[in-house]
């Protein structure tokens, strides 16, 4: 596709979409032969300094209003979903230490992570399972999603506040936090919910083993 048309098409598509769109999807939209990087660079340049900016979050793109205007905008703001303290800490640990397991989070915080805490973050769409770790019990490894980057206005995980200093101080892992390809591993989420339900059941009715028999 011609670059001018590709730019117009992507502009229109992103303008109409509330959620960030993956580079792969955009590439598919304009055809594999089109130089997507060139298109996105041009588009970003067109919108730089304007009231609406092209933002990149991970491998996704979205139009968002410029943050300096927010105080002047008379829009009804979304009710802010206040995360609880454990929720916020858990989110930070997942973001800075990803991929990380529930056990890791518990080690770091020194207390157990309530099931509800992970559930809320999962429901917000900010975290997602990234796979299973090859250790006994094969625990699910968690990481953050493009929606997380989008929500906090981050271009990538390297843009996390203070991430370089923390790495230099040895307070988080050496390697860059990894963004994985698979973000919506529905299977793992379903398995997590399943294990979750199993666990909840065991917690709630430890003595009720009869229902297991036939």
């Amino acid at each position: 596709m011609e670059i001018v048309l590709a730019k117009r098409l992507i502009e229109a598509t992103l303008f109409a979409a509330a959620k960030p769109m993956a580079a792969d999807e955009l590439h598919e939209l304009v055809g594999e032969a089109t130089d997507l990087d060139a298109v996105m660079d041009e588009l970003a340049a067109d919108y730089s300094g304007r009231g609406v900016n092209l933002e990149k979050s991970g491998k996704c793109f979205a139009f968002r209003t410029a943050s300096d205007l927010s105080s002047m905008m008379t829009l009804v703001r979304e009710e802010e979903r206040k995360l609880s303290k454990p929720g916020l800490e858990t989110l930070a640990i997942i973001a800075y230490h990803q991929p990380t397991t529930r056990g890791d989070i518990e080690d770091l915080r020194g207390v157990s992570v309530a099931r509800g805490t992970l559930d809320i973050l999962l429901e917000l769409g900010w975290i997602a399972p990234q796979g299973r770790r090859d250790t006994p019990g094969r625990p699910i490894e968690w990481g953050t999603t493009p929606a997380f980057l989008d929500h906090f206005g981050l271009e990538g995980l390297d843009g996390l506040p203070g991430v370089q200093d923390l790495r230099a101080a040895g307070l988080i892992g050496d390697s860059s936090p990894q963004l994985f390809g698979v973000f919506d591993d529905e299977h793992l989420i379903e398995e997590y919910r399943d294990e979750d339900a199993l666990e909840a059941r065991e917690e709630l009715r430890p003595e009720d083993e009869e229902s297991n028999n036939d």
Partner: protein
Amino acid sequence: MSKPTSNVPPTQLVVDLEAYDGPLEVLLELAKTQKVDLAAISILELVNQYLAFVLEVKKQNLELAADYLVMAAVLAYLKSKLLLPPVEVTSEEQDPAAIAAALAIRLKRLDAMKNAGEALLAMPTLGQNRFATARQPEASVTTNVRYSASIYDLLQAYSNFHKRREAASLTVVRPKLYKFEQALERLSNLLQVKTPTWKSLQDFLPESKGEEASQLRRSALASTLLAGLELSRQGKLELKQDEAFGPLMLRPLDQVPVTG
């Protein structure tokens, strides 16, 4: 050496005990009251502060979760080690300095993540500082998902499910056995007779009935034989067998007064 134990009364922390997520967080809060960089905190002072905190909680008769007490025990141990002049560290024992350093790192890590959480909230968040379009999406990517599964997947799922159920309900039944001690006691009692005569080993077996009779009988035979051998070793009875696989006969010997 004569540092003040703590310049912040632990009562202050005890008041909002509810607000703390476990002992590590309390430690972090205490460390911050030292008003120095986390890298330079005095572990010994921190330990004293924490132990004072736990004492204060106990004084006020408040419930304290077990992990607070575990932490207190660890810290009390650490304190005792830190107060002693440095000795050579044996391989089983961890170097108190290393434990202290590890604790300091843990606190720094936790603190870093608390700060990171706050820093995240200070970012220009969507819906507060930046806005997406609120219009209904005009078009998007629609994905038609086709699910697939093979007969092999299906079977595996079913057998996994059964295996899991089996594992959940498996209980190992301890087999009913006649113990050697039981046999020894029984045999000794039965041999307390006035006129010693030869009797078959079979006559000394306990009666067994019910489902496990044969199993119990076999184990009783083995135990009673062992008991017989033991008593003959002690000189309390004689054993004889007239032919191979014939009945094993035993007869009590005249009791010699046993000493001790």
